[in-house]
């Protein structure tokens, strides 16, 4: 086992990027941290900087203003990094896909490792999605 694989075995640290979303997925991600769901029992916690993170959670449709910043965040992230698209908007654009400011679903912008569909996905679904990432090899990284 190499060092990088070892890092993804346990205790993934998450960074949350909220795109142009309706806030539902954001609060469901927060709900994952609270006593009923308690994602910390997997050693997972939200961190304040992308430079500390193993996983980038992206939710919401991405508009033109967000796109630039998402690319910049991805560039700053330590590689390899796992990317999770959360919610219908993150996966496909959802109801906002026809919008005039929509700049493409997340996987058109950066490579995505896991998709958690739902509007909004239940905290159980989010946890299930992230736990599946333990021991997973990240998708081929884009060198941006």
């Amino acid at each position, binding site marked *: 086992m190499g060092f990088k694989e070892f890092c993804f075995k346990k205790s993934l640290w998450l960074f949350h990027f909220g*795109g142009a979303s309706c*806030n539902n997925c954001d609060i469901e991600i927060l709900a994952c941290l609270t006593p009923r769901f308690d994602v910390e029992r997997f050693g997972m916690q939200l961190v304040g900087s992308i430079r500390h993170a193993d996983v980038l959670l992206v939710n919401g449709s991405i*508009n033109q203003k967000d796109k630039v910043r998402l690319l910049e*965040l991805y560039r700053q992230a330590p590689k390899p990094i796992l990317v999770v698209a959360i919610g219908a908007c993150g996966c496909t654009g959802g109801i906002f896909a026809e919008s005039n400011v929509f700049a493409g679903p997340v996987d058109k912008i950066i490579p995505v490792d896991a998709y958690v569909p739902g509007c909004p996905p239940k905290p159980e679904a989010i946890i299930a999605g992230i736990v599946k990432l333990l021991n997973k090899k990240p998708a081929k990284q884009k060198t941006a």
Partner: protein
Amino acid sequence: MSKIIPIGPYHPLQEEPELFKLYCEGEIVKDIKWETGYNHRGIEKLSESKTFDQVFFLVERVCGICSTSHPFAFANCMEEIGEVEIPDRAKYIRSIIGELERIHSHMLWFGLAGHFIGYNTVFMWVWKYREPVLDLFEMITGNRNSYAMFKIGGVRRDIENNKIGKIKETLDLIRKKTDMLIGAVMDDPVIHARTKGVGILTKDDIINYGAVGPTARASDVAIDVRHDNPYAAYPLVNWKIITAKEGDVFAKVEVRLLEILESVSIIDQCLEGLKKEKEGEIETKVKAIPEGIGTGRAEAPRGEVFHFVKTNGSNYPERHKIRAPSYVNIATFKKSCIGQTISDATISLAAVDPCYCCTERLASVYDKDTGTKVFGGEELIKNSQQKTREIQKTILRNEH
């Protein structure tokens, strides 16, 4: 010389993207500016391409936390245009959903406020007791958020009478736990020290800035759409507007916590009302929406939601304008944050319970004389890039 402290756009403190710039001299905030647009989705434009039934699902996703107030206002608006009277059972169900949402939203805010001032215990506690409310939503509507309960002329699903017992049980739990929170938190000397006298908005400030909702009610301005322009079942039940005098953060906490208890009492009365109505009578059939204009208002957890719709006799809105409460409330930051220390500014910012996904607007510049559009976002970027290239050229030329 003031230093700029940026908060955002993707800051661990906030779950939504927005950018605040605090202009500070030493510890004191001298000026504040904010920048939005990270959350813009073009909902008003999208709405024009959806049928009236579909618009409900779209406006529900204006904001996930207050995802009933927007359909509520839109339904009020369409029923004004179509002159539709809805059955009493539907009115009660609408009010129940609206008030449950107020409970979960106020609890959510209170938890986050606790987190902001460093009381993570409060955050964990309150969010724990918020879960039973979401369970109720799941039982009634099938989803924890975004309930899809509203339609023109009534509601989509009934609350069967056999569910009333379970709802009452949960309400008792919420009442008990809210009392506990009021006892535990409102008497805490540290919370008093952190929130009393912080971010004060006087009655005049509220009127000048046009603030709405709990922000206004905490400064002794008794403004509430449920009372001023009654809709749904609110005229049928007894309730009172909660106000406080001080206008500081503590008053806002107080107003929100007491409103939870008031909401519980409204739901109790609505459930009694439900028992008297016949099961299944939840909608009036609406055939077509005539040409016309209408306005609809509803009291969201954060204040007044306003919808304006112009119809042209077809199945689609011709123009749909939305004004969310945070849009007017965030302007009060100019008053509440300036003169505070940086550490107090965060809780002052959070005190109005700002919701940026409601508030997003797109800015574009128009020529004053000709009325033509001057710059959109892409043109501005192109313009800026061109300037860089020109500067590069001049520098290169000078070097050679």
